[in-house]
Every structure is written in structure tokens, then in C-alpha cells.
């Protein structure tokens, strides 16, 4: 049954990802992105990565996409404001990146790397997937974990700087 479910989720993932770039309305595109994140969560579940699957929904489908939608909806970005040369340039870059990715995918398929053996599950999953991640993340991968907090701190400061801008000089109030 698992192969069929995988095919279902994978097909949904590819189809919705295509719709993200093909649909003209940015809000609908964003909604398709939510769907494709959710089908990715389904694939994680099939790989027995329960924690990652749920976090995929909480962080990507739930939190990041809300920000995307906020920006699209409430900045009223309904129409593409760029024209002519800008669009041509962007399309050109898009085609180049796409061709590179296709080349890369072809290379992977030819070398047979995609169908390599699936890594065996870590033996110690008592208490579930999340506890197993906890035991590894907070002992062996302590340093990357603590660095993450610095990353979040930087992001916080960055968000404030961008949102608040420079304080207006005194005496020049509107």
C-alpha cells in the first residue's frame, strides 16, 4: 500500500508545484504551495519521519505561507508591475536555472544516485521519532542547534530594522 500512497503524494506534489508557477493569480499560487507543502508532509510520514512531517505543516504550511499570503493579499500585488525588458530578463534567468536543474536531475538519474539504498532507521526510537531526534540533536549536534538561536536572533533584529527603518531625524517630523 505504501508505494501507492507514495505515488499519490508524489503526483500531488508535482502537480501542485507546477500549478504554483503556472497559475496567474498569486493568491491561488500561494494556496497551491500550501497544498504542495502538505503533500511533502505526507511523503515524510511515509518515510516514518513523523516529527519532520508535522513540523513541515506547522512551520511551512502554517507559518511561512501565512506571511506569504499577508504580503500578497494586503500589499495588493495583484498585477505584475514589471514590463518588457525586466520580464524578459527574468524569464531568461528562469529558463537557464531550469535547464541547469534538468541537467543535474539527468545526471543524478544516469549515475543511479536517486535510487540508492535507503538508510536504515536509527535503532533507538523508543518514545517515538521526536524523542529520538531530541536525543541526537541535543547531544551530538549541540553546536548547530545553539547556532540556530543566533540565526533566529539575527533574523529578529533584521525584521525590526527592515520594518521600522531608520528613525526620522529630530525636528523633521511630518
Amino acid at each position: 500500500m505504501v508505494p501507492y500512497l507514495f505515488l499519490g503524494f508524489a503526483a500531488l506534489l508535482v502537480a501542485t508545484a507546477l500549478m504554483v508557477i503556472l497559475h496567474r493569480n498569486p493568491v491561488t499560487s500561494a494556496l497551491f504551495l500550501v497544498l504542495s507543502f502538505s503533500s511533502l508532509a505526507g511523503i515524510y510520514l511515509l518515510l516514518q519521519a513523523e516529527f519532520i512531517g508535522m513540523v513541515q505543516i506547522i512551520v511551512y504550511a502554517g507559518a511561512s505561507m501565512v506571511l506569504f499570503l499577508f504580503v500578497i493579499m494586503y500589499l495588493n500585488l495583484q498585477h505584475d508591475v514589471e514590463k518588457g525588458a525586466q520580464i524578459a530578463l527574468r524569464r531568461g534567468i528562469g529558463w537557464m536555472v531550469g535547464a541547469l536543474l534538468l541537467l543535474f536531475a539527468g545526471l543524478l538519474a544516469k549515475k543511479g544516485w536517486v535510487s540508492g539504498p535507503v538508510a536504515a532507521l536509527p535503532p533507538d526510537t523508543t518514545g517515538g521519532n521526536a524523542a529520538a531526534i531530541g536525543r541526537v540533536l541535543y547531544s551530538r549536534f549541540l553546536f548547530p542547534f545553539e547556532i540556530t538561536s543566533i540565526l533566529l536572533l539575527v533574523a529578529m533584529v533584521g525584521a525590526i530594522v527592515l520594518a521600522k527603518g531608520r528613525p526620522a531625524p529630530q525636528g523633521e517630523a511630518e
Partner: protein
Amino acid sequence: MLAYLPVLLFVLVGLGFGAVTIGLSTIIVPRRENAVKNSAYECGVEPVGNARGRFSVKFYLVAVLFILFDIEAVFLYPWAVSFHQLGLYGLIEMVLFILILLAGYFYLLKKRALEWE
């Protein structure tokens, strides 16, 4: 992973329930449209302009900060369930993690980013 099969069924039922209700209602419900009835409701006054305007940057800031603190919370879940096996080591590193983020939080307070004027 068999435990997730019922969840998948509930997902399908959840989507199906809403879709079927709306589908059925479009058959039953009367529709006598006219231009005035279809105009946006603005308490009886003629609608002015387009509804979709731009909003204060505050709302985007809230969404960005939400993502950041949400990621912090996500790190806390695996820590909480493996807490008793991690011992003192785990306690200290998480206190450190939280302290670094609290520093960011105090920065937000200081910059008055959490005020709604």
C-alpha cells in the same frame, strides 16, 4: 505507520464534508441575482473604491516574528520529550538557547516593535 491511515481518512472526510455541503447547497439554494444585491455590503451606502488596500507594516512584522518564535517552539518539542534522558546537559543548553532568544525579545521590547499605537 498504520496509525496514520485513519488520519488520512479524516483528512479526506474533512475536505469532503465541506465540499459536499457547498455542492449540495448550490443545487438547493435559490439564486436571484441582481447588481445591487451583489455589490459589497457597506451598511447601505454605495461602495466606494476597491476593498483591497494596503495595510500597516505592523501586520507583516507580526507574521515575521510569529515564524521566528514558532521555530523556537518547534525546537522545544523534541527537547521536552527527551528531557529526562538528556539530564543536566540538555537543561543547560536549552536555557542558553532560550536566553539568547530572550535577548532578541528584549530588543523587540526596547525598539517598541510590540506596541500598537
